[in-house]
């Protein structure tokens, strides 16, 4: 079946612009996660959703970052007023249920470059 998909695969933007990154989880998966992968910081957790709810936003790096999930499916990660340090690969993952031992399936990521 279809895996997690993300769009766009690559995004180049200018400093100060807003960007939206989209994630389509595996159908039927109730939990959705966003991570960021950069050379300096490795893989960092950003936020998770149980259904449409995000109980813990503390992993978001700054208030320029926000995320939402609608209809228990598609999620959008928005970065406002992008900075060069936001350049990274943004990975989305989903799991069937929100339990620690449920496999998280990752998408291919969106490579964001802020000039």
């Amino acid at each position, binding site marked *: 079946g279809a895996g997690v998909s993300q769009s766009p695969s690559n995004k180049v933007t200018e400093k100060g612009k807003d960007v939206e990154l989209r994630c389509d989880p595996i159908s039927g998966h109730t939990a959705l996660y966003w991570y960021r992968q950069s050379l300096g910081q490795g893989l960092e957790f950003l936020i998770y959703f149980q259904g449409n709810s995000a109980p813990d936003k503390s992993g978001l790096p700054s208030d320029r970052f926000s995320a939402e999930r609608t209809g228990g499916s598609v999620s959008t990660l928005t970065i406002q007023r992008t900075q060069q340090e936001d350049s990274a690969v943004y990975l989305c993952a989903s799991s069937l249920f929100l339990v620690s031992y449920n496999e998280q399936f*990752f998408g291919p990521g969106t490579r964001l470059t802020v000039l």
Partner: protein
Amino acid sequence: QQQVKQSPQSLIVQKGGISIINCAYENTAFDYFPWYQQFPGKGPALLIAIRPDVSEKKEGRFTISFNKSAKQFSLHIMDSQPGDSATYFCAASIGGSGAGSYQLTFGKGTKLSVIP
């Protein structure tokens, strides 16, 4: 503490050899320890995972050894093949409803190169 420390950073192994990657953690609340494999341009994919109630898990050529008292776990790849060349990440997560629940905390990764 949420850190997971992984070593080595890079590893070169001859084809047919054994690749060993080690991880250590501090938080005894972690209850799930997966290993992910990542190829360039792809997202990480689950390779094998273990829970702390067992000391070893084997799937084909891949084995996780888990030492709860030492708070360490390791990945062994037997009969390493050139197709195993990838970056490997150990990770850990916590269940429940407290801070940090459900997120995967990753090690920094090990770039494995298997040479023919």
